[in-house]
């Protein structure tokens, strides 16, 4: 019996190791990190921010300053690691597109002045279609009838070939994508200038259907 008790004690010690199962990530708990110092970024990291100065103090060798995991910029608003571009500055771009200056509500002007820098080639139209499916389809529908899954709930999405917009010139379409019109909001921040012109080429094929 004594031998048996000894075995039982050993078994209990072994079962303590089963607690390791608690290392796995679940819910809000990200799990045990193998080498925390190597996991947490020393330089500012995009999309992750640790504002607690004491986070990771237990493995910090320095006594002063914020602890190991701290990762935010106290000089920026809300401790963010990124800043908005300075107001009035212009982003340089490789294609030499000038900043777009036509006022928000000047749709007719945009339609008159702007010309599509891209030709209507097969590759531009197929690129335009791919972009259309990414950025427009959920409202405007597969064929621009305004019957996308969001469009049906959103309401007020015009068909591209309806009398009101079927003759809209390229510049106007570009302007509407950039600044929005009516119930459609501005998409200039999401879609690059070149991509917008590609979408315009594809939308023009849908206007004529």
């Amino acid at each position, binding site marked *: 019996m004594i031998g048996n008790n000894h075995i039982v004690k050993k*078994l209990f010690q072994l079962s303590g190791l089963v607690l390791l*199962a608690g290392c796995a990530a*679940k819910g809000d708990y990200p*799990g045990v990190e193998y080498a925390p110092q190597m*996991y947490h970024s020393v330089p500012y990291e995009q999309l*992750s921010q640790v504002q607690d100065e004491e986070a990771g103090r237990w493995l910090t060798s320095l006594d002063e300053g914020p602890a190991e995991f701290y990762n935010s910029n106290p000089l920026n608003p809300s401790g963010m690691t990124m800043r908005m571009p300075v107001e009035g500055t212009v982003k340089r771009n490789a294609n030499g597109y000038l900043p777009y200056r036509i006022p928000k509500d000047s749709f007719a002007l945009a339609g008159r002045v702007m010309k599509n820098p891209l030709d209507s080639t097969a590759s531009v139209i197929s690129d335009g279609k791919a972009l259309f499916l990414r950025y427009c389809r*959920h409202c405007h529908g597969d064929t621009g009838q305004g019957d996308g899954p*969001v469009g049906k709930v959103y*309401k007020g999405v015009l068909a591209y070939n309806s009398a009101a917009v079927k003759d809209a010139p390229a510049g106007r379409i570009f302007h509407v994508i950039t600044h929005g019109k*009516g119930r459609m909001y501005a998409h200039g921040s999401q879609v690059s200038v070149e991509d917008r012109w590609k979408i315009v080429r594809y939308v023009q094929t849908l206007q004529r259907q």
Partner: protein
Amino acid sequence: MLKPVKFSPFKEKSRHLTRTFCLSLVALIFSATVAFAQDGEAASGGADDGIPSDPAVISAGEALFKQNCTVCHAINDRVVGPALRDIHTRRPLPWIISFVQNSQKVIQSGDDYAVKLYNEYNKTQMTSFDFSNEEILSVVAYLKAESTKPAETADPTTTTTDGQVAQGGGSGVPSEYINIILIGLLIVLALILLVLVLIVSVLTKYLAQKDDLDEADKDVVQNRFDLGKTLKGNTFMGFAVFIFTAIVLKSVIDGLFTVGVQQGYQPAQPIAFSHKLHAGQMEIDCNYCHTGVRTSKSANIPSPNICMNCHTVIQNVGGQTGMSPEIQKIYNAIDNNQPIEWVRVHNLPDLAYFNHSQHVKVGGLECQTCHGEIQEMDVVYQFAPLTMGWCINCHRETQINTKDNAYYDKLVELHEKKSKKPMTVEDNGGLECAKCHY
């Protein structure tokens, strides 16, 4: 002030002209009215409001209405524009016709009702439609016909779709029934066991009373299963210890493998955003919000202005009215100029480099390959282990799409000299240490 009228042939001629003009104008108006009335009568078969009731006209109006108007108007509900039930009693026909043909003209003419309408609907312009009078009449005829039907409340489409989606997941018997069936089966089995035990004990008792059994049979009847003895026996003890140690070792090894792996991490987010609703049900493309995925290392979490592209208009879900508390949080963030502090789910260690555009744009991978069926997730969790072994495995197996890409021509040529297998990421240096660790 009156001057004496002088007779002059010229004046006479001009007066004559004026009179002729006036007369012809009256005649024109008269004939137009008559023609209009006749038109109306011909179509309506005698109704006095000038709205046709001919079924053919109504169905033509229905087609026109559904093609052109339903994006902004419904019969019973206010959508972008007002509900159009009983429009024929609210506004006179000529007004409706001129408003549909050019609403801005009517508003600019200072028409009280039109101006009020324009202001009530946040100065949203109604598109001008170049319909003929007859076409607009047919639409009004359709609206009149619909108005006489009893009002139905709009069914919340979103909820029904939701229900369908929820049910679509399981095929055949729903999971809660399966549990009930299993429990039922267990009870039946336990009852059968009980009955069998009873039968055995009754039979044993009966046989024990019998005297005419031979030795072997007696042994069987009198043999009792000694539980305590078996438990203390070495064979059982050894077996139990072996099983226990095996289980413990297995859990230890499994536990150690989870260290540093965050698979299954599912943090609560500051806003109860559902990918299932947005990417699944509403079919919004991942690229629409995660704008960086094709152009940069990081896929990006969308800023609130992208949320507001839709949520300026859509303020609640499932057909409910008012502002949803979750959507209100986006408004608050914008009003207070405070960032929304989303919790990052996929945290790659700082020692490994990963680039989204390289995998999505160049490699042509689907988001789901690494992130799982994200369009089915209400709350996002880490689907893949994101371990080095997992990365390497994919690099070994994935073939490079070298078609129509001049960049790969020489590489493919070199590769084909030494191997007959198709070129994988591994052959392109996908296993080199410094590709991901530097």
